[in-house]
C-alpha cells in the first residue's frame, strides 16, 4: 500500500510548501543573509560593537527620525485623501467610474523613478508649482510618497466599503442618526480593519521607499532605505548597512505582526455581498470634491510628465519619442524601445513565477488546521513571504551578487535572475490578493468533492480554481505591472546588455543633455501607458469585494 490518507496529505502539503520556501530561501534569505554576514562579521569575527556604534551615530538617529516622521505624515495624508475617494469610487455610481478608478491606481504601479521624475517636473523651478520652491525640501518627498500611495488606501478601503452591508447604517439612520453619526458609529467601525490595514501597508511602503526619496530627496534628506544604499554602494560600510537593515527588518516584522493581529477575523469564510452603488446625492458633495482634488493632484504630475516629454526648447515636438528608437548615443547596447521589449519579456516571466509561488503559498497558508502548532506555523509562513516587502532592494541586489556566485547557484549572469527578483517583490501582493479569496472558501466544499471521489488535484480544480481564477488573473496583472516598474533590486542585477526600461530611464537621467532628459520623460510616458493599460484590464477582471492587499 502506498502512503495515503492523512499522513500522505500532510506530506504533500509539506512538499508543496517546500517549493516557495526553497525559492525564497535561495533568492532572498541567502543573499540578504550573506550581506548581513559580511556586515556583522566584518573580518570573520562577530562584532556587535560596530553595529551598536552605528546606531549611536547622530546621523543614524536623524535618518531614522526622518523616515518615521515623513512616513507618518504621508500615511495620514494618504488616508485622509483616500477615504472619501474610496467612498466615491466604490459606493457611488457615475459614468466613467472604472476609468477613474484605474487612473487613480496608475501612480502605484508606476516605477518609483518615474514617480520621482513626475513630481520633480511639477515642482521644478520651471514646473507648474515652481513658484512654491519645493524642490529639495521634505515637502517634495511627502508629495511623492502620497502620490504613490493614495491608491493603496482607495483600493483597500474601497473594496471593504463596497462589500459593506448597507442595512446597519440604514437602521441607525432610522433611529435618528445623522449621516456623520452613521459614519462615526456604524460605518467607520466596520471599515476600521481595512483602514488600519491600508494605513500600515502605506506606512511600510513609505518607510521603505527608495526611488522616490532618491530622486526627490537630494542629499540633505535621507531615509533608512537610501541610507542603506549610500552605506552599501558608495561607502562600502557594510557593518553600518547591516545595522540599519536589521533595524528595518525588525520594524517591518513588528508592523506585520501588529497588522496581522488587527486584520484577523474570527471567521474568514465569507459570502461576498456587494452593495449596489447608488447615484450621488448632495450630501456626497464634500467627498466628491476631495476625490476630484485627489484626481487632479494625481493627474498633475503625470500631465507634467507628458507635457515635458512633448516639449523641446519651448516648442512642441515628437523628437523625444523618435529618440526611443535609438540608443542614446551609444549609452546603451540596445535601443530604448528594445529595452521596453526586454522589460515586457522579463515581466512575463516574473508574472508566472509570482503567480505560481503566490498560488502555492496562498494555498498552503489557507489550509484548515486543528492543531495550534499547525496554525502557528502557517502564520509564520504567511509572514515569511511578506518579508521581501521590508528589506532594502540594495541589500537584496548586492546580496545576489555575493551569494549566488558558486555553482550550482552561479546565477549572476542568468537571464532568469531579474524576473526571479521581481517575482519576489510582487509575491506579497499576489499572496495578499489570493489569501482572502481562498480563506473565504468553505472547507466543506473541498470535503464534499473529496467524499464524492475527487482526488486532491481534482478538488483543487473544482473548488479552489473556480473561485480563484479571476483574482489570480488580477493578481497576475499587478505582478506584471510591478515587474515592469521595479527599479531598486533590478538596477543591481540587470544584465548590462539587457537593461529594463526603468533602469534605462534612470540612466538617461544621469546623463547630460536635453535630449536624454526628454527621452527619459518620453520613455516614462510609454511605460506609464503600458502599465495603465494592464491595470485597466485588471480592474475589469476584479471580483467585486476582493483584491485589496
Amino acid at each position, binding site marked *: 500500500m502506498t502512503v495515503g490518507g492523512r499522513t500522505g496529505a500532510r506530506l504533500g502539503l509539506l512538499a508543496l510548501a517546500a517549493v516557495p520556501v526553497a525559492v525564497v530561501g535561495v533568492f532572498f534569505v541567502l543573499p540578504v543573509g550573506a550581506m548581513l554576514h559580511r556586515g556583522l562579521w566584518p573580518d570573520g569575527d562577530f562584532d556587535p560593537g560596530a553595529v551598536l556604534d552605528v546606531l549611536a551615530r547622530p546621523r543614524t538617529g536623524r535618518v531614522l527620525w526622518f523616515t518615521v516622521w515623513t512616513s507618518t505624515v504621508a500615511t495620514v495624508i494618504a488616508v485622509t485623501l483616500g477615504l472619501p475617494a474610496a467612498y466615491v469610487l466604490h459606493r457611488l455610481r457615475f459614468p466613467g467610474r472604472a476609468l477613474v478608478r484605474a487612473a487613480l491606481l496608475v501612480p502605484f504601479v508606476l516605477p518609483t523613478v518615474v514617480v520621482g521624475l513626475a513630481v520633480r517636473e511639477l515642482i521644478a523651478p520651471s514646473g507648474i508649482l515652481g513658484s512654491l520652491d519645493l524642490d529639495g525640501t521634505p515637502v517634495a518627498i511627502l508629495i511623492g510618497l502620497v502620490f504613490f500611495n493614495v491608491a493603496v488606501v482607495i483600493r483597500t478601503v474601497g473594496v471593504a466599503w463596497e462589500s459593506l452591508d448597507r442595512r446597519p447604517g440604514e437602521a441607525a439612520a432610522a433611529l435618528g442618526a445623522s449621516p456623520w453619526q452613521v459614519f462615526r458609529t456604524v460605518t467607520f467601525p466596520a471599515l476600521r480593519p481595512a483602514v488600519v490595514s491600508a494605513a500600515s501597508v502605506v506606512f511600510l511602503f513609505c518607510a521603505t521607499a527608495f526611488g522616490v526619496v532618491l530622486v526627490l530627496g537630494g*542629499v540633505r534628506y535621507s531615509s533608512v532605505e537610501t541610507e542603506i544604499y549610500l552605506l552599501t554602494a558608495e561607502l562600502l560600510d557594510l557593518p553600518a548597512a547591516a545595522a540599519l537593515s536589521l533595524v528595518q527588518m525588525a520594524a517591518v516584522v513588528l508592523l506585520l505582526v501588529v497588522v496581522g493581529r488587527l486584520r484577523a477575523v474570527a471567521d474568514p469564510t465569507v459570502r461576498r455581498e456587494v452593495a449596489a452603488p447608488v447615484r450621488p446625492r448632495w450630501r456626497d458633495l464634500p467627498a466628491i470634491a476631495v476625490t476630484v482634488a485627489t484626481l487632479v493632484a494625481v493627474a498633475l504630475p503625470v500631465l507634467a510628465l507628458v507635457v515635458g516629454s512633448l516639449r523641446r526648447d519651448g516648442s512642441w515636438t515628437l523628437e523625444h519619442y523618435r529618440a526611443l528608437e535609438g540608443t542614446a548615443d551609444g549609452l546603451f547596447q540596445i535601443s530604448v524601445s528594445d529595452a521596453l521589449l526586454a522589460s515586457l*519579456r522579463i515581466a512575463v516571466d516574473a508574472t508566472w513565477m509570482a503567480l505560481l509561488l503566490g498560488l502555492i503559498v496562498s494555498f498552503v497558508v489557507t489550509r484548515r488546521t486543528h492543531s495550534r502548532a499547525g496554525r502557528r506555523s502557517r502564520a509564520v509562513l504567511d509572514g515569511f513571504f511578506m518579508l521581501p516587502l521590508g528589506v532594502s532592494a540594495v541589500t537584496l541586489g548586492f546580496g545576489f551578487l*555575493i551569494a549566488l556566485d558558486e555553482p550550482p547557484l552561479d546565477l549572476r549572469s542568468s537571464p532568469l535572475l531579474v524576473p526571479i527578483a521581481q517575482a519576489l517583490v510582487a509575491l506579497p501582493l499576489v499572496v495578499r490578493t489570493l489569501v482572502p479569496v481562498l480563506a473565504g472558501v468553505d472547507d466543506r466544499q473541498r470535503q464534499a468533492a473529496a467524499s464524492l471521489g475527487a482526488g486532491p488535484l481534482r478538488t483543487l480544480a473544482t473548488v479552489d480554481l473556480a473561485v480563484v481564477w479571476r483574482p489570480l488573473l488580477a493578481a497576475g496583472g499587478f505582478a506584471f505591472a510591478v515587474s515592469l516598474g521595479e527599479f531598486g533590486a533590478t538596477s543591481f542585477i540587470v544584465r*548590462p546588455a539587457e537593461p529594463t526600461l526603468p533602469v534605462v530611464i534612470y540612466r538617461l537621467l544621469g546623463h547630460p543633455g536635453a535630449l536624454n532628459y526628454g527621452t527619459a520623460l518620453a520613455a516614462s510616458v510609454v511605460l506609464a501607458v503600458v502599465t495603465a493599460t494592464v491595470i485597466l484590464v485588471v480592474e475589469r477582471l476584479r471580483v467585486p469585494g476582493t483584491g485589496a492587499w
Partner: protein
Amino acid sequence: MRARVLTTITGLTAATLLASGCSLLSSEDDGSDGVGGAADTKVTLVTHESFAIPDELVAEFEKDTGFELTISKLADAGTLTNQLVLTRSKPVGDVVFGVDNTFATRAVDEDVLEAYAPELPSGAEEFELPGDDEDALTPIDTGSVCVNVDTAWFRKQGIPEPQDLGDLTDPAYKDLFVVPAASTSSPGLAFLTATISRYGDDWTGYWEDLVANGAKVVKGWTEAYFEDFTFSGGDRPIVVSYDSSPAFTLNKAGTRSTTRALLDGCFEQVEYAGVLAGEDTNVEGAHAVIDWLLSPEVQAALPPSMYVFPVADGVELPADWAKFTERPAETENLAPARIAEERQGWIEEWNEIISR
C-alpha cells in the same frame, strides 16, 4: 458579457505570450557572456556608466585581436569599485576600466586585481598610482575637477568673478555656488578632497562657511551642471565641474567660451584599468583590452567621447580643447592611500555639516 469576452481574451493573450516565446525561458541564452569559464575568445570589460568609445574602435579591436568584446556598464565609479570588492575572486568580468585615484587603493588593497605591466606610452608614467608596487592598475585618462564660473553671467551682473576657493565663502557670492555631494558623486568627493588638502584640519570650518554662505549640495554632477548652473538655465553661476568643461560652453559664434575653470583648488583625477583576479579570467583578453585602451587611437578618442584628457602625451587634442581649456599647473592632491583610509570618516563628517 463583455467582461467575459475580455477575460477570455486576456487568458488567451497570456497563454500566447508564454507559448510564443515572449518568455525568457524560450529564448536561447548565449550562456556566459564571457563570465565564468567562457571560451577564451570572449572578453568582458566592466566599467562605469560614463564609459563611451566609438563603435568603430571596438570593431577594430575585435578584428585585430580576435576577441569578442562585451562592455558591461555597471554603475557609477564609486559603486563600481565597491561592487568589485564585494564580488572579489568571482568577478563579473575579465578587466575593469574606471577605477579612479580616490578609490584605487581600496581596489588594490582588497586584492581584486591581478598584476599587469603593459608598455606605457610616453607621458603616462607620471599618472601611475603611487604605492602600486604590484602593477595592479594602469592609468588610462585624467582630468581635473575644478570650480567653474559662468563668466558671461558675472559680466552681465557686473560682479567680479571669484578667483579661488577662499572667495566662495565671501558674502558677495552668497547663494551662487552649487556642488555635487561628496557622498554620491565622484567629482563631489574630488572637490571635498581638494578642500581637505588645502585647509587641512580646518576643512570642516571651511565647509561650515560654505554652507552658511548658501552653497547648494545636489546629488550628482549632472544635477549641479545641467540643472542649477546658470549656463544650463539654472540660477547658480558657480559650479564644481572639470577643467575640460569650458570647451563645451562656447558662444554662438564659437569664438570663445562663456565659462572658465578656476585653476585654484583643483583635484586631479586619474582613471585606471586593471585585470580582474579570478579563476576564470580571460587574462590574455584582459591584457589586450588594456593595451587597446592605451593605443593612440583610443587615447585620441577619449576627449570627445568621455570629456577627459589622455594620459599619453603627443596625442592631438580636439581643436576646441586646445583653444578653450586650460589645465591647472598645480593641483591639490592627497596620497591615494590616505584618501582610501580616511574617506569614510571625511564623508561622515561632511554629511554632518551639510545636513545640519
